[in-house]
Structures are given as structure tokens and as C-alpha cells.
């Protein structure tokens, strides 16, 4: 009996796989997603389905154009990209926002680079930023839960009008908390006045607030993140560093001038902070591989989020922060390598002071 030969060890495997890794992230996203889909009603559901389907379609198109097999469709990465993108869109955005976004994410963000694992930037964030820059109006029109859950909320059929862009949103749309606070601050109002009516930490925590489709419920996002940590789908380094840096900067500035700078809790609970910290910045492809590199990457994201929210032209900065740090990832990976066994941090072999007398 002969056995075909050029096989090499290990002749065992831990069982991890790409579809499993993607599946775990999707599993962790389910609570926050369901919450968003229920809270924001039929227009959000249409947008979610459109975005996810479009992502799969463009993945197939990209693979077909590249002359590759369609098998990677099954790895779940395109599904996850579409899903994450949908989570970051205004829930009542028209259908074509989802389709254009999916095309940008999959074709420009991923397939152009050579497919899964090759892209430098997070595909969903590439799409989100491109949409925000190209279509600022539909990308900043949010609706409050009081509208989406109110008596005038559109039904399954009525929602089609919103999804097709036929029903104008003027009059019912509002800014997100971050946007509102920014506008008011620029008009010279103090934070106490602004936050008094608009901000309730408990509501932010539950997610009963205007915002992107899947970013509102802090509690459910943290739950999903903890699940990912527990199942070792992600490590703690990026989320902890990101949230830590943001908390630190917010606390410092808040201490200096409470009337201008909101505290840490406000930053942690609003916008895409938690979605970004657990689900977006942790994208393995576009983040550093070494633990130290991940700490730096996460801290950089957190600091940039704070800087953009506080001083730059946009009220929310998660997508920009992640993309900027993505660009730094190759550099971080180059410089922050683990120390090799038996060598010092510079790569020279270790030597011991008492080694000379040992070697007779």
C-alpha cells in the first residue's frame, strides 16, 4: 500500500475557517441588526436587503470579470461587507444608496485589489466615505424613532415610496445627536443647553435614538462584541485601545472645559463608536497582525475619531479614522513586529553577561 506523498504536517487542524470567522461576526451582529430593522421599520428593511443582495451580486460580477471561480461567494465575506455597510447607512436612505455603496465596497474597495485579503482599506468604510462625500444629503438625513415607530410610520407598501426616493423626507428627517450637537456648538450655545433636551444616556444605551441603521443600540453592540471576544473571533487589543483612547481624550478635554467638550460617556454611546470598535476596526484584513500593532492601530482610531468629531468638518469620524489607520497598517506591521525568540528587540542574538565564563 502506498500513499501519495508530498504532504506535510501538521496532520491536524484547529478547525478555524474563513466562513466560520465571518459567520461568527454575523452572528454577533444579529441582535443590533434586528433592533435596527424593527426600530426603523420597512424602509430600513428594504435598504438592508438591497445592500446585502447588491454586495453578493457585485462580488459575483467582480469574480466573473476577473475570470475566477465563484466559490469565494460562499466564504461569507461579501455578505458581511454588505451587512456592515447597511449598518452604517441612514435607515431611510433610498435603495440606490445601498446599491452604489455595495458596488463601491465590493468592486472598488475589494475586487480591484485582488479579492479577499488583498485590500488595503476596509471595503465597507471606503463605500461609506465615498457615499458621504458624493451624496451628502441622503447620507445625513436621519429619522428619529418617534417618527419610525410613530402612528404615521409607513407600512410595507408605503415604505416603497421612501425606498424608491419618491416620498420626500423633508419635515420628518432630523440630524443625529452628533450632528445636532455640532451645529448647536458652532452657533455658540453651551453644552448644558444643547444636551439638556437632546441627550439621554439611557436612551442612547438602548438605542432609542436617531442614527444609522445598526449603530444606535450601544447595549446590543457591546453584547455582540463580548460574544466575539468570548469566541476568540477578535482579540481585545483594538476595541480596548480604541475605546480607551477616545475615553481618555474626551475625559481630559471635558475636564478642561465642560461647556465645550462632552464627556467620555457621550462619545462612547453616540454615533458609530461601538459598531466601529468591535466590528469595523477589527477587520482582520485591514488591521495590523501583531498585538502591539493592534494596540497602536486601535488607539489611533480612537484618537482620530475624537479629533474629527471635535474639530474637523464632519460630526462623525469613525469611517475616516478607520480608513486613515488602514493606510498606516503596513507601516505599523513593518515596525511593530514581535520579538523573535532568542533575539533582542533589534533582531540581534541574545547574549548573557555570564555566558562568556560558561563557554570555557
Amino acid at each position, binding site marked *: 500500500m502506498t500513499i501519495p506523498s508530498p504532504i*506535510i*504536517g501538521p*496532520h*491536524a487542524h*484547529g478547525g478555524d475557517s474563513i466562513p466560520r470567522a465571518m459567520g461568527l461576526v454575523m452572528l454577533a451582529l444579529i441582535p443590533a441588526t434586528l433592533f435596527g430593522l424593527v426600530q426603523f421599520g420597512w424602509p430600513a428593511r428594504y435598504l438592508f436587503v438591497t445592500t446585502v443582495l447588491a454586495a453578493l451580486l457585485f462580488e459575483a460580477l467582480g469574480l466573473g470579470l476577473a475570470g475566477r471561480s465563484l466559490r469565494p461567494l460562499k466564504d461569507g465575506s461579501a455578505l458581511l461587507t454588505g451587512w456592515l455597510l447597511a449598518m452604517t447607512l441612514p435607515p431611510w436612505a433610498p435603495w440606490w444608496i445601498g446599491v452604489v455603496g455595495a458596488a463601491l465596497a465590493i468592486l472598488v474597495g475589494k475586487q480591484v485589489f485582488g479579492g479577499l485579503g488583498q485590500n488595503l482599506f476596509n471595503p465597507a468604510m471606503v463605500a461609506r466615505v465615498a457615499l458621504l462625500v458624493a451624496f451628502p444629503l441622503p447620507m445625513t438625513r436621519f429619522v428619529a424613532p418617534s417618527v419610525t415607530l410613530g402612528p404615521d410610520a409607513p407600512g410595507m407598501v408605503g415604505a416603497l415610496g421612501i425606498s424608491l426616493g419618491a416620498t420626500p423626507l423633508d419635515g420628518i428627517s432630523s440630524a443625529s445627536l452628533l450632528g445636532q450637537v455640532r451645529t448647536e456648538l458652532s452657533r455658540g450655545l453651551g453644552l448644558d443647553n444643547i444636551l439638556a433636551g437632546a441627550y439621554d444616556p439611557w436612551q442612547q444605551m438602548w438605542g432609542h435614538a436617531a442614527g444609522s441603521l445598526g449603530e444606535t443600540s450601544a447595549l446590543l453592540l457591546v453584547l455582540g462584541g463580548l460574544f466575539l471576544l468570548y469566541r476568540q473571533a477578535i482579540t481585545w487589543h483594538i476595541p480596548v485601545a480604541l475605546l480607551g483612547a477616545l475615553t481618555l481624550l474626551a475625559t481630559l478635554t471635558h475636564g478642561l472645559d465642560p461647556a465645550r467638550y462632552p464627556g467620555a460617556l457621550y462619545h462612547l454611546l453616540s454615533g458609530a463608536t461601538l459598531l466601529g470598535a468591535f466590528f469595523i476596526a477589527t477587520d*482582520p484584513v485591514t488591521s495590523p*497582525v501583531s498585538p502591539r500593532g493592534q494596540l497602536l492601530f486601535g488607539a489611533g482610531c480612537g484618537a482620530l475619531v475624537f479629533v474629527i468629531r471635535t474639530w474637523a468638518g464632519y460630526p462623525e469620524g469613525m469611517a475616516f479614522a478607520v480608513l486613515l489607520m488602514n493606510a498606516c497598517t503596513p507601516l505599523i506591521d513593518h515596525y511593530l513586529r*514581535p520579538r523573535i525568540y*532568542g533575539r533582542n528587540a533589534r533582531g540581534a542574538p541574545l547574549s548573557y553577561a555570564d555566558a562568556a565564563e*560558561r563557554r570555557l
Partner: protein
Amino acid sequence: MKLFHIRGGVHPAGNKERSAAQAIADLPLAPLLHVPMQQHSGAPALPVVRRGEQVLKGQLIGHSQGTVSAPVHAPTSGRIMGVGSYPAHHPSGIPVRTISLKPDGEDRWITPSDPLVDPFTLSGEEIAARVSAAGVVGMGGAAFPAGVKLNLRTRYRLHTLVINGAECEPYLTCDDRLMREQPEEVLDGVRIMAHALGVSHILIGIENNKPEAQAALREAARKALATQDAAAPTIRVVGLPTRYPMGSAKHLVKALSGRETPARGRTADLGMVVYNAATAFAVHEALRLGRPLVSRLVTVTGGAIRYPANLRVHLGTPVERLIEFCGGFREPPARLVSGGPMMGEPLPSVRVPVVKGSMGILALTAQEVAQREEGPCIRCGNCVRACPCGLLPLEMAAHARVGNLERVVGLGLLDCISCGSCAYVCPAGIPLVQYFNYAKGELAARQRAKHKQMETRRLAEQRTARLEALQRAKREALAQRKAAAAKPMAPPRPSPGEARI
């Protein structure tokens, strides 16, 4: 005892239960043994017997050649059927110099050539010489001649002998059974080696998944300590966390001492020498009974084996005999492996013989192997976290794939111990070890080619210099003759160039 942290590593399923419960059994003699001359690292042994010759068990049949080599002895008494070539116990199955022996069934030992004396009255050199003459090699897989390492005290100031009873590879249980069933013999071998090395401490490291072996050796150590004198080395049995690759000598030493072996160096640089528990047993047999290494313990297991076992096997026994003894296959194996599943190598055929380094024969089912198709790297960093050497396996593989050897070496290829932890955790199923082995092989080939080129150039330059000297000598001789012709009385004198050639 305080243990130190080692980085990375993995926790593969142990799968030791099926064979760990089986006491050591003697495998009956095979009708024909095939004893290769290369069962150790270093130069192969040279056959010293002829076809038709009658030999006794333990008789020298292959003489060691060179400083790093080991002799080979007849595994049983019988007749030499031939000195030829036979497929090696190696994935290639390439034919190697092998002596075929037909046992006479009597299994009669030869009388030891050296008189048996108390090993503690012998010097380190004498013990090392006896261990070398007995053909003892490292039994943990690398098969490095054990006597060579016993002489390290001439070059290093050593203080600790570390006995590696980690047996961190899944499935394998032969060291476990040996330590459980013959702890006193193992410990005796350990103490003889400690005496030879002149060390003052003995540490016996055993993973915590082998509590019986730990207890057995602790008991043996307690008895030995009670009787030995105060100057003798201290003995400690240390429980090690169950983590692969705890049995890597460099990582074992780190866990025990907190110090890392310098890159490209030896554990002896830290004053520590590491031997496998089974090697200690072989040293005991060689020194106390005068018996060379002619058999070893082999674990036969895996999901496809009907009755897993730990067998004492005559070296040279075909692997198929072991499998037959274990009741054959429950189901057709997806892969036959020699050694453990992490670092073991596929067997080319079941006809190859058991050699000194064979720790286990695994018949793995497809489910156990969990072979998968190679996907794209998603840079998840699992390999970086798992690497016990602090390397970046994903980057090394990417550069190896495109043949960028300089970069791979720059990233630490030569610090890689090929433990396979990276490939074990890779979600994309990338055969990382294969890339590294390719790069290591390619590097060795390039270095050989470079060496050859330089040798050729050196020889060519020497030849040119020689020819020039010859020419010059001829010219000088001619000039002298001319001068002599002008002055006929001067005697002829050989030129210095002529004398040299």
C-alpha cells in the same frame, strides 16, 4: 517550582486516551528485519558484516563514520540476508543502505565487550564513549547521537540536566508509558548522564496531562535522593502546562529557567542540556546491562487503528507488522504518519522499517487530518499569536511563495522550529510549514551551490598559480642554462619552482 511564560503555542486535542491506557507490549519478532545504516542525524554507518554471516543480538553490524554518527547493531540474533538498499523511513521512501537480517528466533544477546562496572566510577569521557558505542541517539525525534552531547562539558560550563518528558505531541504515549512502567530505570539513566555531564541539578519536565508519570518519577526520585550522597545532583520533577510545543528543547528551557537560548546557539549556552526520557532509558540499558540500542517503544494509534498500543519493537521491523499486531485498520486511513500529528512526516509505505527515531505510527482518518483547500490569507494574525518563536508566519509565507528568499531569511526563517502551530490555527488552511521547508531547502541548495562555486574558483586560482610558477621556473632554468653555457664551469642547480612541483 516557578515556571516562566513561553509565548504562543496551541492546545491541540490530546487524543492520547486510547493508547495511554495500554501497557507496553512486546511485538513478536518479524520474519525479516531491514536495518538501515542511517537512523541518526549525521553520517551513515558503514556495514561491517557480509551476506550469510551469523550475528548475535547486539553485535555491531554498522560502524559509525565521522564525529557526528552512530553505530548500528543487530536487533536480534540471526543470519544476514543481504547488504543492499531498501526504502527509507522517510517521506521520500528513497532506497538507502540497509542490512536485511533473518532472525533465528533465539534472540540471543552477545557478551558485552566492555566489562560492566558501576557507571558512577567512570569518567564523563568513558560514559560518553560507551553511550556512543551503544548507538544511542536522541529518542525524541531528532536522533542526534547522544554521546556527542554528553561531551559538551568540555566546551561549556554546565549546571543543569533537563529531562524532556513533555511528550507534547498529541496521540503519542510511549514516553508516558515508559516513565510510568519503568521510572527507576529512566531515573538511573538520568543520573548516569548527570554524572557524565558533571551537572549539579536535574530537572525532569512532564506535562500535567501525565499525572501518573509525574507521580512515578517523583517516587523514584525520592528513593534515589534518600540513598545518594549529599554531593550528588538535586532531582526535581516539574509539572509543565499542557501546551504544544512545550517539548521543544529551547522552549522547555525557557519555561524552566526564564532564559531564552540565543539565536543560532545551544541550550548549553545557558548551561543546560536537554535529553528525552527514552534516551535516558537507553543510556541505562547501555551502561548497566551493556546492551546497545536495538529496540524502542512505538505508539501505534490514530482513529483508523483498531486496537491502539504501545509496543516494544526491534529496530528494522516493517511498519506493517505493527499495524497487523494492532488489529489492522478499522477504516481505510486517510494518512499514515510517522511521529506525532504536528511534526510527524507521512510514511511512504507500510513496508518501511522502524528506526531509532520512530516515536509513533499514526493511521489518521480524514476527519482527524481535517485537510482543507488553501484559501487566501485574511491577515487574521492567528499564526502570529500562535508562533512560539515570535515570527510573522503570514509574511514569511507570502515572500516564500514568490521565491524572495532574502526577505524570508530576514524575517527569521532560520529561527523557525517547524512546529506547525501556525498552520494548525490558520483559518485559510495555508500549508505554512510547507512554504518554510521549501525556503529552508532552497536556501541550503543555494548555499551548497555557492560553496561549490567558491571551491571551484579557489581550485582554478590555485591551478593558475601553479602553472605560472611552473612557467616561471622553466624560464629561469632556461636563463640559467644559457648563462651556464656562457660560463661552462658552473654546476647545474635545480630552481626552487621545480622542487615544489
